[in-house]
């Protein structure tokens, strides 16, 4: 029983983080049909903001808020620099500009800060452990689960009950029609990037909180995870992204427990082969956005 509980906590905390990562990627993809390769760098930006403000003596929560705000700004900047100027021209062009923007941010961090890891401040509670019902677990796992629940709840409220959310869903369903009905396209797209940045910022706190340090390449792994999760769950469905995140975490933890050591190092190859297989079997993912482009 306690093993089961331990397993569930591992899956839920990892899955919560994965789901938030995937959601941040898919919100932009849903509206623009474009993959944002610079998504991982939003996480990096938040991490370096934490490092840069760590000397200021502010309370941790204030620093975290500033970091998330910076991630939001970076998200909006991605829109203005990499997406807006080439959006109308070609799909390939946008993919390449976002890839270029990602390289730009990464190398800026290399050049202006350092290639070496930099420590970020963490609140005490992140390194404590909690014991209950025969299970010992780091407190940050429980924090991650709580944050994921709050963020997902907030997000689904935003998408269902606010004008902005409804307009975004309309734009995701049929962009041209939404524009004709008076939905301002640029505003909607910028908002999607801002929400993407917000999710990235929150994920960054949880993700970097695991290691306590930030390097220029820190965004690659979250980006890959978000890719896999969205592809498994469904590129066009928000629920799909969340489902994909939890499924991926379930697979990762199960493989960790079951794979022999010398195969474990190939785990990424296994998961990515799985992505390729899923895309072949169901090109739209497990949860399919209806063919007309409708989504809930």
């Amino acid at each position, binding site marked *: 029983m306690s093993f089961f509980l331990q397993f569930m906590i591992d899956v839920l905390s990892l899955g919560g983080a994965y789901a938030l990562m995937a959601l941040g990627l898919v919100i932009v993809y849903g509206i623009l049909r474009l993959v944002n390769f610079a998504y991982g760098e939003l996480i990096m930006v938040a991490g370096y903001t934490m490092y840069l403000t760590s000397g200021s003596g502010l309370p941790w929560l204030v620093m975290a808020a500033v970091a998330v705000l910076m991630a939001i700004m970076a998200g909006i900047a991605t829109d203005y620099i990499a997406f807006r100027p080439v959006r109308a021209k070609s799909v390939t062009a946008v*993919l*390449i500009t976002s890839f*270029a923007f990602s390289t*730009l941010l990464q190398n800026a*961090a290399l050049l202006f800060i350092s290639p070496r890891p930099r420590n970020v401040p963490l609140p005490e509670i992140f390194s404590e452990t909690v014991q209950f019902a025969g299970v010992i677990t780091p407190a940050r796992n429980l924090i991650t689960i709580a944050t994921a629940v709050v963020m997902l709840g907030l997000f689904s409220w935003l998408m269902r009950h606010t004008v902005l959310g409804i307009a975004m869903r309309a734009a995701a369903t049929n962009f041209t029609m939404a524009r004709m009905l008076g939905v301002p396209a640029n505003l909607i797209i910028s908002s999607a990037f801002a929400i993407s940045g917000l999710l990235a910022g929150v994920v960054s706190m949880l993700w970097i909180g695991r290691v306590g340090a930030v390097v220029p390449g820190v965004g690659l792994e979250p980006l890959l995870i978000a890719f896999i999760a969205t592809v498994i769950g469904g*590129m066009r469905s928000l629920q799909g992204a969340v489902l994909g995140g939890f499924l991926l975490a379930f697979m990762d933890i199960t493989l960790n427990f079951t794979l022999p050591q010398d195969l474990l190092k190939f785990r*990424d190859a296994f998961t990515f082969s799985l*992505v*390729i297989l899923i895309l072949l079997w169901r090109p739209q993912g497990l949860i399919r956005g209806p063919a007309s482009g409708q989504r809930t």
Partner: protein
Amino acid sequence: MARNLTTIAVLSGLILVMVVATNLLGVRLFDRLAINLCISLVLVLGLQVFMGNSGILSFAHIGFMGIGAYTTAVLTIPVRMKGMSLPDLYPIVAGIELSPYVAILVGGLTAAAVAAVVSYPLMRLSDAAAVITSFALLVVLHTVMTHWSEVTNGPRTLFGLPRATDLNLAAGTAILAIVAAVAFKESRAGLLLRSSRDDEVAAGAMGAHIPRLRWQAFILSALFAGIGGALWGHFITSFSPKAFFLKETFVILGMLVIGGASTVTGAVFGAIIVTVTFESLRALEAGINQAKIFSEQVIGLTEIVLALAMIVVLVLRPGGLFATQEIGALLWRRARKKEDR
């Protein structure tokens, strides 16, 4: 036809001029730069064969470069060195020692064979799904290269390749690559593939078997990448899997995008422009680092400039410098205009 021959002649001429100039100058630094350029050319042209004609962005290209490099490494590292550089190598291949020239070809063919097996089902996908699968393929190839210690020495540096790539070999291969890229583009398969790039539905309705066409281009592209990787391996003589990942992908992609993905001319000019800029920026970086102007090492400047250049080019000229017409066609049109006057 005459236009295509002009294109080939002009582009190969550029390379020949470079080879002659380098030989006359006899500066070792330029020698390195020229070989580097020729290898990049082979890689960029390989990417152009697939991406330019099919219109699908592929990230996996550099993975096939890695396959080529590791294949030739396993086949050419001298038998007595193998105990040191590849201690866990399977006994069957441990005794093999081929001439580098044969091994380079085998490297290319292996990459093409792997591509043929892996990619056929992937060619049904378009747009974002195709891009993500190619990205996933790159990660799979990279993970395998990093962890298959028996063949690649794991994440550590693999050393001991004989140095076999000189300027003549690299330039010769680059010229062959130009001819092959133009020939494929103008072939029946190339023409059909380009029509599918411009309008997938219409081309399919006309009877073009799009997945098979893309597959052919992908295999040819992997062949180029494998040969390019093998050449690079015999030029640099020691490398680790890190060399075949996102950074290199970015550089090669940058060359193609800045030059113009749809034309062979674009690929060639992109490679030349980016290599020259890159090398001068590297020299600048090294200079700054040596002069100790800043307390920390300056790194990443080159990539920043390249990234900015890519964004600017894509914003101003989404098709790159040579968006639609090869240099041969451009020259012929200019000549005809003069006659008219």
